[in-house]
């Protein structure tokens, strides 16, 4: 049986629905010794800001039950060196790169997007709105529907690339956030980013992470992520990209059945650098087992009664 795994994730078609998640796969090259990058639908690179950012002091990560917290502080080389030094690798081997961008003001988001305009090898922009809006006193763009919409509109105005907007789960109503960014013109919606958490070192009586709090990722958050993807997919028209604790093909299928057109694999790549490729083959095995010719038949096939 010939199976079709390619999906349209909003203005761009990728050969299979599996990407790596931003911040968990470096710039791709780091994983080349351990996995076949060409097996992937796309690689979403570490979040890019206008200027390089040093990130937070250490400890930056701590393990939690079936998960981990990270407070990397969005350390990155900055958009310019990314284009010069990091992007060529993925472009040369022919793997679509998705640029994850962030800023502390609408202007900064816009400036990063502008800089990416016309860069060969970039298939789409993913906007990370889980970022403090310094102009609004640190309130996150990702928790306020209006700020989120504004960011999306600003980026859309300066780019010809498809735009994916990545939602934060730290909100009361994820549907409201999704509708706001859809209204702002996003071509697709990805979720979830990490859930804010803390681990206390009871001997030192201070947080383990130097930053105090960090973002929870990994299998622990999967049920929350699946629920939110299901909620969002049921209210928006644009494609939804699901993530949160995906370790294998079966986990990815939960998201796809719940309504995700594609998925991203994050923390799993730390444990097994070949995880994303294994997710691809896991999905294919499932499709063969159930005689599903086109992955799109599965998207949102969940029976809610």
């Amino acid at each position, binding site marked *: 049986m010939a199976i079709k795994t390619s999906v349209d994730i909003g203005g761009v078609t990728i050969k299979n629905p599996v990407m790596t998640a931003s*911040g968990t796969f470096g710039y791709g090259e*780091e994983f080349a010794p351990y996995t076949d990058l060409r097996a992937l639908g796309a690689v979403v690179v570490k979040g890019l800001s206008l200027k390089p950012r*040093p990130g937070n002091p*250490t400890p*930056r*990560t701590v393990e939690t039950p079936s998960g981990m917290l990270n407070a990397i502080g969005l350390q990155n080389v900055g958009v310019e060196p990314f284009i010069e030094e990091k992007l060529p690798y993925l472009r040369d081997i022919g793997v679509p790169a998705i640029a994850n961008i962030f800023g502390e003001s609408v202007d900064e988001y816009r400036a990063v997007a502008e800089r990416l305009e016309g860069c060969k090898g970039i298939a789409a922009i993913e906007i990370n709105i889980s970022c403090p809006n310094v102009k609004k006193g640190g309130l996150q763009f990702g928790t306020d529907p209006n700020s989120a919409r504004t960011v999306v509109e600003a980026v859309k105005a300066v780019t010809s690339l498809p735009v994916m907007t990545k939602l934060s789960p730290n909100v009361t109503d994820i549907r409201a956030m999704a509708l706001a960014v859809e209204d702002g013109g996003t071509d697709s919606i990805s979720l979830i980013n990490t859930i804010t958490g803390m681990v206390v070192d009871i001997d030192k009586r201070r947080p383990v992470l130097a930053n105090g709090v960090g973002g929870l990722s*990994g299998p622990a958050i999967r049920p929350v992520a699946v629920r939110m993807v299901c909620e969002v997919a049921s209210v928006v028209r644009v494609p939804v990209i699901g993530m949160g604790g995906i370790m294998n093909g079966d986990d990815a299928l939960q998201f796809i059945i719940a309504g995700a057109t594609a998925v991203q694999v994050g923390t799993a*790549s730390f444990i*097994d650098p070949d995880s994303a490729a294994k997710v691809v083959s896991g999905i294919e095995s499932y499709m063969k087992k159930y005689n599903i010719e086109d992955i799109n038949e599965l998207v949102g096939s969940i029976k809610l009664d």
Partner: protein
Amino acid sequence: MARAEVLYNRALSPYHFLMGLSYTGVRPAPGQFVMLRISSGSDPLLRRPFGVFSLLEDERGQVTGITILYRVVGRGTQIMSEFGEGQAVDLLGPLGNGFPAPKEGERTILVAGGMGLAPLNLMALVYPESKLIFGARDGVEASVIDASKEYGLLPSVVTEDGSEGEKGLVTDLLSSALEGLDPASVVVHSCGPMGMLRAVSALMLEMGVKTYVSLENSMACGLGACLGCAVTCTGNGGEGEYRFVCSDGPVFESTDIDWARIRDGH
């Protein structure tokens, strides 16, 4: 990534173990490390990093396995200590950059504190002309040095409580070892608790001895991808910068480290 098998898992003390693992990949260099997966489930989730203590070889000198020396400090190492022979373990590595190879005419001194012995033992085995200094808090911690002695190594030993070897600190032994030597001809390689590395580095800086330290840090990936294991370094034209223990290290030249901005706790 390789599927390794536990060849043996020997207790050196109630808390210290030497584990032999089958392994046939690239030959690990002294100072490199491996990441072991402890459970096939999601708790514990992340791999755990361990230095390579020694290599197992067949009669033709091909690597057939590695050993790791470890101390039980938490859930992961507790579970490891219960592994029996034949247990399958997923191994990623060798990773990171080891100690620079000694150059002609160089005097190599290896300064190990506690579990910091692991990478320096392999260094001492590969470069037998080097001098190994080992320090530990107490007799229990010092028990690991037996594993080195079994390889015929002749370390100088100190303990803080005097229960094994001389009573004192590794810096005492190091000072004596340097007596009469030209500082410019010596290179010190060191691994152990942050406080010790700090002291060794300060002393060697003062004496003008080139020093390398092998650092530890919480690691999620070991591949330079998560950016979790950042360490504050001088450099970047004096502005300071983060470098990564897993991919830039674990071995750094001590003057590259911005010691003032590091907490000893980790």
